[in-house]
């Protein structure tokens, strides 16, 4: 395709480029002192057919637009690696250990209010899903983990999550405050009985996976 555009083609090209709305051939012609813009439009349409932009006619009005095969360039996704916040990690852990669980239950376990955004983040990450509603007054939404959660954390099933005794054995309960932990450690046998009795069977089993296994 060899061409040096003539002056009318250049004028049409510039006018359509700068126009804020698509223009009909009549409007173009009027803008360009009544010139016959038909041939120029055809020549330009042909010229741009191979390029990254096209000259297209839509409902008798002409406009430039991105070539259809390049439309994806207009919308780019940029992935941003972000670490889960401590609050979100806690909520994820609670969902994982206690699922299905409502937001009120999560808050009861954490002892602090949990912003809706925290659960949104976990759902955006694809690790937590809405698992229905609990059939109690208010019918609260309940949350559970997803298969992506298991694969991300390399777990075959939720039963692979370490129980609280194993966490203790691994020293994971220690680092906070030695004096405080001393007390907790001494009182924990009783404490566990007290907190677990009302839990769902599932959660109780998780606390002591070796017993259920």
């Amino acid at each position, binding site marked *: 395709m060899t061409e040096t555009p003539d002056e009318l083609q250049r004028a049409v090209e510039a006018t359509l*480029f700068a126009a804020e709305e698509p223009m009909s051939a009549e409007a173009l012609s009027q803008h360009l002192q009544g010139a016959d813009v038909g041939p120029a439009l055809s020549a330009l349409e042909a010229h741009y057919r191979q390029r990254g932009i096209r000259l297209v006619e839509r409902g008798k009005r002409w406009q430039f637009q991105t070539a259809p095969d390049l439309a994806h360039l207009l919308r780019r996704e940029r992935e941003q690696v*972000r670490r889960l916040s401590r609050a979100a990690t806690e909520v994820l*852990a609670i969902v994982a250990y206690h699922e299905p669980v409502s937001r009120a239950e999560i808050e009861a376990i954490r002892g602090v209010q949990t912003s809706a955004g925290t659960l949104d983040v976990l759902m955006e*990450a694809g690790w937590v899903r809405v698992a229905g509603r609990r059939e109690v007054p208010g019918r609260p939404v309940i949350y559970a983990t997803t298969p992506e959660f298991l694969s991300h954390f390399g777990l075959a099933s939720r039963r692979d999550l370490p129980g609280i005794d194993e966490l203790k054995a691994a020293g994971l309960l220690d680092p906070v405050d030695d004096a405080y932990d001393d007390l907790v450690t001494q009182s924990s046998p009783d404490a566990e009985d007290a907190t677990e009795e009302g839990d769902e069977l599932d959660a109780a089993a998780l606390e002591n996976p070796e017993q259920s296994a």
Partner: protein
Amino acid sequence: MIEDGLLFEPLAETGEDWNAPGTAPSGDAALYLELDGWEGPLDLLLDLARRQKVDLKAISILALVDQYISYIERAEALRLEIAADYLVMAAWLAYLKSALLLPKEEQEEPGPEELALRLQLRLQRLGAMREAASRLLARDRLGRDVFARGAPEGLRIDRKNDWQCDWYALVSSYAQLKARNEPVFHMVRERPVMTLDSALDRVSAMLGVRLDWMELREFLPRQGDLRLQRSALASSFVAALELARQGRAEIRQEEIFGPLHLRRVAA
């Protein structure tokens, strides 16, 4: 250049050719309005200089001074708040002119030639910028002569977050949560103690045996748990105070933190 730059001969034909910017002479009433149009005395001077129709390097400073002073004198209706700067410049120029006309040997530093040259340099610089500004404005300007695309589709970048969390963070977070929320039981360990009652019995029994001063420590059990010994010390001390209060014993201490002695009060 210095000599070229200062033509001390006033140019005869420049006298009447320098009215206000772009206006025909329309009487003195117009002049005060015209002062508003100048961007300060230097601007007015530059305009007057331009009217000499010579290169700024070859400008006649003396002619310029005359033109300026004459212009200011004719602007009768000067508004003072606008005119102050112009009047200061007029006074300075009048001084410059007289200095330029004086014999050289009577002049102070900086000499009038230096002042005149500096004024000329300033006018050149302002002139250069005025010229540059008009050339800049005459360029093909975006939105006036050339145009960007009227309706660009726009590029959208959707940010997607790739959330990161590992197994350890997950599990340790749960552990900490558990640790934080365990109900706290305050348990006092069973410890070997000597109660006050038994200390009272013990001390009064031993006082009964001995008549002279005894150090408090002699009342304490010699063996056993260190914690029991400490408890015994505390209890025995309180027991001694109690016996003294009851009038059954006397307490003596030679110095602060010194050993504590006690003995029975003979009834």
